[in-house]
């Protein structure tokens, strides 16, 4: 127990925790959207994220930027980051759609038992991970240094780097945008209707298949955005990166109440913060343990997560 370390590093731990939490939250949204509509744990979502990390790195490589090249000017850097976000989001979104069409839709058409979906998810996850492993020769791929690493601004003891600032602001924009989309638009109404009662929604003229596909694409877009920032934060990626991050993000989704969008966002940020404080307190080798301890203790007292599960039920 190292309280001195926690107190001394508190501002820094909070910023890095928020950034990590924002990445968890963006991935968790994909789990929670699919769960809210289909009551299905989409285990292949971690690979959707993983492919997004490569999508971003390939985009940068197309501009001649790799881990050895020098930092470009700030304007150019922001431009390539924006392009990478678009490319990674599109790639992840289409992979998520591919998974839904090939691995889940045929089973739904046959009214298969829920556990069969779990196996096709595992199968899709294996296939995607191994495919990328072969394409990248199972090596770690570095991402270029795009933004300067010095402090952008600091208030009191709190200093923020450009990457952290960018991650947090884009994540907030994406989350607010998604919340608006689900709660305020016509498409969002369809999603909530299917989440509430799929068959009744279909009888009312909602195209169930299209709504489900839309949900997968939305989750994929979020994972793609998270992937870009994960690249910039850790500086590299690997074909099996999705596993642990996916697991944490899924825990975050359950923490907030799976099927609940705001819950996933809160759960992700909370998990990032608690992990950081905990690893300062107990030592960084226990970082991964803390996530699961928090999850289990919380589920003992609130069996449906912090905010409870509701995509359709609230504000229907």
């Amino acid at each position, binding site marked *: 127990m190292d309280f001195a370390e926690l107190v001394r590093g508190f501002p820094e731990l909070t910023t890095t925790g928020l950034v990590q939490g924002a990445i968890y939250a963006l991935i968790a949204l994909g789990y929670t959207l699919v769960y809210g509509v289909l009551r299905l744990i989409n285990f292949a979502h971690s690979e959707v994220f993983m492919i997004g990390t490569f999508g971003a790195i390939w985009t940068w490589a197309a501009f001649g930027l790799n881990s050895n090249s020098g930092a470009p000017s700030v304007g150019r850097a922001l431009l390539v980051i924006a392009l990478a976000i678009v490319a990674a989001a599109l790639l992840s979104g289409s992979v998520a759609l591919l998974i839904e069409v090939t691995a889940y839709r045929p089973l739904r058409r046959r*009214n298969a038992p829920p556990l069969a979906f779990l196996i096709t998810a595992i199968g899709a996850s294996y296939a995607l991970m191994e495919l990328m492993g072969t394409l990248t020769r199972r090596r770690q791929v570095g991402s270029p240094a795009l933004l300067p690493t010095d402090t952008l601004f600091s208030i009191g003891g709190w200093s923020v780097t450009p990457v952290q600032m960018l991650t947090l602001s884009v994540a907030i924009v994406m989350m607010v945008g998604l919340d608006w989309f689900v709660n305020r638009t016509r498409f969002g109404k369809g999603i909530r209707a299917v989440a509430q009662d799929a068959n009744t929604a279909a009888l009312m003229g909602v195209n169930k298949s299209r709504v489900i596909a839309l949900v997968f694409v939305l989750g994929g877009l979020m994972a793609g955005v998270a992937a870009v920032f994960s690249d910039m934060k850790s500086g590299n990626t690997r074909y099996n990166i999705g596993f642990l991050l996916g697991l944490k993000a899924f825990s975050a989704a359950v923490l907030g109440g799976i099927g609940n969008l705001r819950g996933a966002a809160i759960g992700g940020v909370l998990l990032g913060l608690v992990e950081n404080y905990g690893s300062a307190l107990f030592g960084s080798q*226990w970082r991964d343990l803390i996530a699961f301890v928090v999850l289990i203790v919380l*589920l003992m007292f609130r069996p449906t997560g912090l905010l409870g599960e509701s995509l359709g039920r609230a504000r229907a």
Partner: protein
Amino acid sequence: MTALRERWHSASSAIGRRVDGLPKSARITGLLAFVAFLYVLPNKWFYEYLNIPGLWIPLYTTRNDMAAVLFYCAWIVLLSLGLNVVVGYAGLLDLGFFGFFAVGAYTVALLTSPESKLITEYNWLESPWPWLVTIPIAIALALLSGVLIGAPTLRLRGDYLAIVTLGFAEMIRIIAKNQDWILNGDRGIPQVAHPPGKYPDGTAIFQFEFKPYYWLLLTVIIGAVFLIRNLANSRVGRAWVAIREDEDAAELMGVPTFRFKLWAFAIGAAVGGLSGTLWAGQANFVNSSTFSLENSILVLAAVLLGGAGSIGGAILGGFLVIYIPEWLRSVGDVFGLPETATVFGNDFDVSPTSLRYFIFGILLIIVMIFRPQGLWPNRRRAAELQDRQKEVAVVE
């Protein structure tokens, strides 16, 4: 496509009916012959003649010792038999099965290794115990940990149970990886005892060769199959099926659901622990890397691929999830497939050896699309699913 599927269904059910129609003596003879075949299987002189006639595709593995592959198959088969009780009979989704495996393996390692800290640092033991004595202790501890983890968590349902069991198994793994007081962290515990037994000429039977371990495991599996089968046909088994089909209705009918769920969980854990003891005896070394979540997921895939709730399905699934990837390693040699492909001037390793889990993943999807109930489902469960299929999906 549909016609083809229906033909296949009618053909397979016709075979099933014919097997059922055989007199009991014939069925038992057939079963015994199959068991004998399994015992002979790891011998090279035997399996090298097992080819698909006409095609000459060896069913044995050319890149890896067949006895080793069979040992790993048997290992996963035993685990999937244990998990089948939890997932298949009682319908509890357990994603952390390897946690109990870890309990069994570490118990054996701590008690039998001369390097164990119980001996070298804490002096709790005078000398390492023999392997055989530690087995009941390991099974009892695994059972106990099943009860301890199950008691608070089994009140959760469905997916929440899955994530909590997953969390517990990961916690066991991370603790085993990081702590240094007893389990030696990542360095692990070496020199775990082998099972006892000597050939007439005085050399030990159980050393590093896989064949005797495969035979031992096969014998244990046969015992486990009898136990689980009898359990499933008893009052306990009927209670499990009732819980799986409708937990609330079972509770209303007077089935003490929580107690039976806990039983299923604990029995599964005990089988997992037993598998851990056998594995530790072969590997001679235990550290946390075997207990990864990937392995728990593989066992779950085995149970569901074979068909949840059926013993034959669990055995078939457990065999296939190890055997298919291992066999794919050797397919390239047989057909002379290229090892690398050049795309835009870059060489990629496209040999079936490196793509084997890619192919395996695709196979999992295809099998589940065409047989969502599993390859060899339990008849009652298959009927439950048939009912589901008849329910009309409104729009798709």
